[in-house]
Structures are given as C-alpha cells and as structure tokens.
C-alpha cells in the first residue's frame, strides 16, 4: 500500500521536500545538542523542563483527541464519522511519533533510553507513559492499516481488529491521564498538584485534537478528491465546543480555588502566569492571548450561524488549537517551575537551536501524517469512485 505515497502531484512533492529540509536543519541542530549537551537549550537548573516536554504534553493530547471520532462511530454506530475515523487514527499516529521524538530529544543521555525497559520502575509514571504511548501507537498503526487495506480490497476488516479498536479507547484516555499523572502527583509543585489536572488535560485534548482534525479535513477536501463530509465536521465542531468550554471552566475552577483560598504556594504560580510575579511577567501576554483565543473560539462555536460558517470554522479551530497549545504547552511548564521550590524566579524561553529541533520534530510528524493521509485519501478515492 505504501507505493501510493510515492506517486503524487508537484505540490505534494514540494511539501515533502520542504518537510525534509526542515528535518535536515533540525537534525544538524540536534547533532550539536547531542555532542555538547542540553546547554544549547534555554532550560536551567530551576526550569528543568522546557519546550520539548511542553510540546510533548500538548501532542499527547492531540493524539488522545483522535478517540473522539472512534467512540461515536465504533461504539455508537454514528455513520457520519465513517469516512473520517481513519483520519483520526492516523492523526493519532503522527502525533505519537512526535511525542516519542520529543522525549528522545529532551533526554540528557538518549543512548541509555532502553534503561527504562531494562530496569522497570512500577512506581514511576514515566514508565507507564512509555508503555501506554508505545501501546497506543502500535494499536493505531495496526488498526488504521488493516482497516484501510480492507477498504481498498473491498472486504470486511479482519475480526481481530474489533477488540483492538475497543482497546484503543481506554488507551486513548489512558495516555493522557498518565501524562497528567506525571505532573499532578509531585508534592513540591503547587501549580500541578491538583486533581483537576487530568480532567483539564483531557478537556483540552478533546478540544485541540478534533479542532486540528477539522482543519485537516479542510485540507484534505481542498487537495484531494476525497470529501470527509460537512456533517462530520459539524459534529466534530460541536465536540470541540463543549470540550473547550469544559477546559475554560476547569481553568476557572483552578483560579477560584487558588485565589480564594490564597495559599501562597499555589497562588504564586497563577500570579506569575496571569499577572506577573515580583516583576517577572514574560508569560502574561501569552496566557491572556490563550484565554482570549479559547473563549472567542468557544463563542464562535456556540453560535450556530458562526459554527456553520464554512469560512469561519477553520479559523475558529485554529484559534482554539493555538490557544490550547499556549495553555498546555507554555503555561503548564513555566507555571509549574516558576517560582522555584525556594521561591526564586528563573524565567524560561526556548533558544534558537531548541526551536529548530522542535520544528524538525513537528516536520517529522507532519511527514508521517502526510504519507498516511495520502494513503487514506487515495484509497478512499479509489473505492468511492
């Protein structure tokens, strides 16, 4: 089936070459990081996780968001999603590839990464993260491939894919819950030590994932002969709407709990993020932008005329996606580390090499996504005539 990916239009190949160029540039930056250590990044003793882990956290959410098309179709026979479940599954694959790459580029000693498997640590959340991420990746690759293959050959997919599909649903919830558990079980980090972190992660994931999927559907409709279906996109937009409202509501709950109780260990972080702390305010404009983007996006999705506006919808989805990225990516990490456990402030911003490597990882994910989507859309074009 992969031979489909090597036959494409001029635009297709231009896009692929562009992605490869970005990957190449990022690889050069990574080689420098590998040889000289993480000193090429903007991370510090106080902010020991940065852009890589931020993007990892966000992309785990996007991967989990794929489940929002699987559940309605496979559990509730929602026919409108029939044509796009494969797109959701392949989006999960692309996101997971990026997640795993972000972890690898973040490691100080990446050649020792197998130690996690050689010396299993059942008390460590990173151990479970590795298991569920790999598991979900393999599940989605196998399920997506087999179903696409079956569709191409105009037969029913093999029976054993059904239990795997059902298994992928708790796995999807699992990957993001475990990722949230990385953060919310640490006693020393007031911003993260909250039970609502896992629900918030999931809400933001179910907003960002389907929002991105809607944008991808637009791209697929424009560049291929496959039409995912306007009705499917409409349903997805309703899912995004409720998810982003939930995310904002959970954030509001956080704000209330923290500021009403007034415990300094907790207020300091939200104060830093939203209003600045002791003169340090690098993230304040970002956080407010995120809140405005997500709220405006929510409004645009609530009002039916705006939600059903075909030109406005992708813009709204991009707003929500970007807002969720700021909130979960930049806000989560910096908010947790600033101020430090000793109440010092060290601000963080990614360096050039760090951004370059991040872009290369994104390009790799998009490359995987492009190839898989090429397969999916081509097969669907063939089959649907």
């Amino acid at each position: 089936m992969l031979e489909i990916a090597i036959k494409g239009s001029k635009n297709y190949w231009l896009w692929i070459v562009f992605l490869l160029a970005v990957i190449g540039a990022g690889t050069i930056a990574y080689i420098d990081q590998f040889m000289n250590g993480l000193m090429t990044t903007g991370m510090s003793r106080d902010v020991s996780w940065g852009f890589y882990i931020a993007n990892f956290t966000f992309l785990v959410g996007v991967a989990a968001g794929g489940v929002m098309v699987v559940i309605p179709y496979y559990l509730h026979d929602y026919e409108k999603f029939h044509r796009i479940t494969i797109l959701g599954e392949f989006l999960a694959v692309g996101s997971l590839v990026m997640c795993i790459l972000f972890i690898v580029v973040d490691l100080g000693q990446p050649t020792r990464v197998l130690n996690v498997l050689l010396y299993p640590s059942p008390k460590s959340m990173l151990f479970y993260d590795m298991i569920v991420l790999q598991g979900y990746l393999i599940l989605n690759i196998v399920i997506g491939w087999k179903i696409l293959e079956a569709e191409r050959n105009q037969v029913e997919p093999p029976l054993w894919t059904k239990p795997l599909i059902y298994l992928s649903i708790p796995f999807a919830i699992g990957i993001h819950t475990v990722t949230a558990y990385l953060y919310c079980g640490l006693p020393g980090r007031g911003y993260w030590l909250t039970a609502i972190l896992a629900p918030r992660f999931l809400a933001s994931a179910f907003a960002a994932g389907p929002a991105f999927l809607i944008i991808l559907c637009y791209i697929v409709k424009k560049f291929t002969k496959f039409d995912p279906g306007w009705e499917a996109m409409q349903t997805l937009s309703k899912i995004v709407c409720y998810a982003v409202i939930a995310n904002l509501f959970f954030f509001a709950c956080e704000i209330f709990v923290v500021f009403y109780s007034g415990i300094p260990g907790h207020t300091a972080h939200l104060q830093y993020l939203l209003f600045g702390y002791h003169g340090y305010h690098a993230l304040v404009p970002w956080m407010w932008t995120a809140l405005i983007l997500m709220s405006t996006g929510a409004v645009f999705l609530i009002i039916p005329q705006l939600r059903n506006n075909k030109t406005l919808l992708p813009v709204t989805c991009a707003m929500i996606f970007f807002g969720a990225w700021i909130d979960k990516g930049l806000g989560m990490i910096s908010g947790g580390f600033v101020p430090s456990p000793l109440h010092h402030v060290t601000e963080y911003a990614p360096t050039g090499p760090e951004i370059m490597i991040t872009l290369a990882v994104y390009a790799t994910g998009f490359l995987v996504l492009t190839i898989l989507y090429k397969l999916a859309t081509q097969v669907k074009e063939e089959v649907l005539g």
Partner: protein
Amino acid sequence: MMKKSRRSFLKVAGIAAVGLGASPASNFASSDISLPVKSKNKKVLTAHRWGMVIDTNKITDEVVESIVEACHKNHNVPDFNHEVDEEKFPKTRPVNHKQEIKWIWEEEFHNAFPDKEDEFLAEKFHDLPFLVTCNHCKNAPCIQACPTQATFKREDGIVLMDFHRCIGCRFCMAACPFGARSFNFRDPRPFIEETIPAFPTRSKGVVEKCNLCAERLAKGEQPHCVEASEGAIIVGDLEDPESEIRVLLNEHYTIRRKQSLGTEPSVYYVM
C-alpha cells in the same frame, strides 16, 4: 527432493545452534567452587537511616564558605565562575549561569523555609545564612519518579544517584520539592579547577546532587561538610536512639523544610 533436504538442513542447523549456545552455559555451571565475595570495608560507618543536624547558631558566613568549598571541590562539582584553561579546553562556549550545579549552598530564611513566611520574623533570622542541600527524604518523591531507578534509596537511607544509569530525563528534578538537584547541561570538566581523582567527575546529561559523602562513610570518614563545619553539622543514625544525632534532637527543638509535604526529610535545623 530440494524441499525435503532444505527442511532437514534447517532442522539440523537449528539443533546445532541450540547446542552451541548451551555450551558456554554448561561451562559456567561447571566452574570453580570458591566464588569471589563482595563485602564492605572494615572501617565502614553504617546506619539504619542516615540523618543530618545543622545547628544554625554555629553557622557563620565563613563556615558556609568553607563547607561549600569542601563539598564542591572534593566532588569535582564544576564552578561556572572559574575561567576555563584555553589550552586544555579550546573553544569552550560561553557559560549560562542559570545552568549552574550546586550540591550544598546558602539561602535566606524565607527561601529555605518558604512555608514559614513570617511578617514579624525575629530580626536575627533575616540575615542568617541557612545551608540547604538534599534532604535524603524517607519518602523521597524523586525515587518514586525515576523511571530507571538511577535515583534510589540505599538500605542505609541515603538517596543516591547511579550516574551510569541516569538517562537525564530530569523527572527527579521536577519531583524534588526542595530544588536540591542539578543537571549537567554541558561537560563539566572545563570548569573544574582542580580535579580530585578520588571521586569521579560526571559527564554531560546526568542529574547530580549531594550523596551524603557515601564514598567517605564507606571508609569510616565523616562527610566533607561535617569536617569543614567546625561542629555545626553532624550526621548520624536517626534510628539509633543513643546516637549523637538523636541526643541533639532530643535536647533541641528542630525544624525541617516543608515538613507538611510528608516526604520526611532527614536534615534537621536547630534554630
């Protein structure tokens, strides 16, 4: 004819491979009777649970300086203020002081004990230097977090780093409620003024922190900070009711950092 002989060839080859694989194992099983023994040095200092008491009344700025120097120097902790020897380490990139490494250092009261913020704190505590380091907690969150057990708790209570196993994920740094851990963002060697061969340096990409001078305790010697402290710091067995440290804890009121988190730090401060 071809199929049958190929199949039988593969069968024979498979059995031969298993047989060849088994021979080193059988060699091993039939090896020597007296096996080598690994044990501790006779002078070793042991404990059920190592703890430390810092008498803040005896801590002055000079004592702090000599303690920090003794610890960092003897453990080859890089000093980013140190000017790099251009000949030995050409083309060393400029330093980022935010990526510093420190095992023990001084803080003001409100930084060392942020949960004890007090508007009307006694004057003398405002400027007093407080030494902070790894607390070797009994329920250390860093040990829970480490996915490879590169950070682990030894049977004598010391929270130790296995630098060989650390993958540099820095999860332990996120987990530590006391900010006790540092990461080697770069190769530390250019910044070590005088390499002490008795203790290894670390390579880039691993996390490090106070190790309660496990290598000194193994030889029956006191940790470097204790020796340099002029009596301000002592270490001992918290679970031995007759140890010097328990006597001290019995005589004085002590506090620990962020006690309410339940990590059970083993470093006590006599106020």
